[in-house]
């Protein structure tokens, strides 16, 4: 009896928290299918009374959100592929080769993880201005070519690759490029997947840097476009709900597909960190 009460009360707490967690998403989704008249009405309902998908059509056609969506997708994919590759390469070199200053270099990289973004953003902006890279994707991608987080995770992952495999390959006459691409990379499969997921989401979430760098409308990314849209059409709630949904829904689907990897990846990064 006591156990039943305990289990019921625990379940109630957990369910209430789950509802509070997803309620904002459900409300946004429902509201995005309402008309502006219904959103502004005095008597509010949770579910749309006159279901309409017009908001999505408007936002995608009139305000080119499809374009911003594709720009964000392109940017996030490029960042993910580049950083995962460079992290694996740097992690491998820092883990498997012995050379002077190796520890110092690794410590420098780890220390940069502590530098707050607000501190580096002002000088980085001036640098991009100096290089003449404002309003180009170069300025978005090149300052993110290496990530300390990725290098750190990949170096940890490389420690579990036995040196004997590498030695065997070398004795068979493989050069280091072959060894890295054909032997090391396949062994790092799990880390590659979990780092990719995080890098992709972080790139999708980027706001301030693209906002500062990108000036022309047709190159803009989704979260910046969302903020600009809200500044211009602050009373078009229906449009804003649809635009917000477009920024959130793909991420949620992506998350549900890879949810197991996420939970593993988060726990692993904390235990090792």
């Amino acid at each position: 009896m006591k156990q039943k009460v305990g289990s019921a009360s625990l379940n109630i707490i957990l369910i209430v928290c789950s509802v509070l967690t997803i309620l904002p998403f459900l409300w946004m989704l429902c509201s995005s299918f309402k008309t502006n008249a219904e959103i502004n009405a005095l008597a509010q309902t949770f579910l749309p009374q006159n279901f309409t998908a017009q908001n999505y059509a408007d936002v995608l056609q009139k305000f080119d959100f499809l374009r911003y969506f594709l720009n964000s997708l392109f940017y996030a994919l490029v960042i993910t592929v580049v950083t995962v590759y460079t992290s694996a390469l740097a992690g491998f070199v820092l883990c498997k080769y012995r050379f002077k200053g190796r520890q110092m270099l690794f410590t420098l990289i780890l220390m940069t993880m502590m530098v707050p973004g607000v501190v580096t953003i002002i000088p980085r902006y001036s640098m991009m201005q100096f290089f003449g890279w404002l309003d180009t994707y170069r300025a978005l991608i090149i300052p993110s070519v290496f990530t300390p987080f990725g290098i750190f995770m990949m170096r940890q992952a490389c420690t579990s690759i036995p040196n004997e495999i590498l030695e065997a390959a070398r004795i068979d006459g493989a050069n280091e490029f072959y060894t890295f691409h054909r032997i090391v990379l396949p062994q790092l499969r799990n880390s590659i997947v979990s780092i990719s997921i995080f890098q992709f989401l972080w790139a999708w979430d980027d706001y301030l840097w693209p906002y500062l760098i990108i000036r022309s409308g047709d190159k803009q990314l989704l979260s910046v476009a969302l903020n600009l849209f809200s500044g211009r059409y602050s009373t078009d709630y229906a449009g804003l709900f649809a635009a917000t949904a477009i920024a959130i829904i793909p991420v949620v689907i992506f998350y549900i597909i890879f949810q197991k990897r996420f939970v593993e990846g988060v726990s692993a990064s904390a235990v090792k960190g």
Partner: protein
Amino acid sequence: MNRPARLKNPLRSRSEVILRGTVVCALVIFFVTFFVIPIFMVFGGSFFRWNPLKGQLNFLGLDNWKRVFTSDLFWRSMGNTVFFAAVATVFRVVLGLALASALYSRLIKHKSVYRVLYYLPTITPLVAVAFVWKFIFDPRIGLLDQLLNTNINWLFDSRYAMVAILILTIWKDFGYAVIILLGGMYSLPQDCYEAAEVDGAGAWQRFRRLTLPLLKPTILFIVITSLISYFQTYIPVMVLTQGGPGTQTYLASYLIYEEAFSKYNFGYASALSFVLFIFIALLTGLSFKVSGKSDDT
């Protein structure tokens, strides 16, 4: 110097030298360009009147620094930031501990479903969810006043604006603490718990005497990373309140962002951000010292 090293590694090949050299050079160039030089630039720039739009760069001496320490808005924003970071961190850890303990219980089924749900806000883009909450807080169309049956103008009432920013932040971040703490609980030694149960320790006692002390490193990890990231929060302020009403929700990072990229006072913003940098560095150092001590005992 070179010779004995080569003897130790008879298999070091030309391709290794090339690969190693390229990667090390690239790493050094990258981290010096985008992390080391910027820190010096911020420090140097804080002594100038620096406006990148006008191409202005005039030496000012200590004027920016004097302005920082005599500015009411700066101290106000630092106070707000400390309050915000402390409250958000406490809620994150307490909620995380409570829900992770509940999920850890053998009485609960479908653990993975809860975990997936709780982590959902953490992975969604912050700008977008900030907009969702902006509408939730809206007194006319918003969900919150309807649910609570109140008529509070959350974002424009000086008593509630900071509460609103805290609600959004806690909602977005508690799931991360749940997952990390649950992972920590699973890695604790099971035999201690069995022994405690045999000795008749109740659930609360087991939590108080076993789980909490054993999880201390994990809890410290969350406290440190939370404080560091909350000291840099600005997006919820930017979307929800723009620092208002009055100066109620100015956070330090938002102030820097506004000075730098709305007013283009790069010099003054550099001085501000250097102060924040020192503050975060001290905090990090202090927390490493604390966590180092706890490992010894």
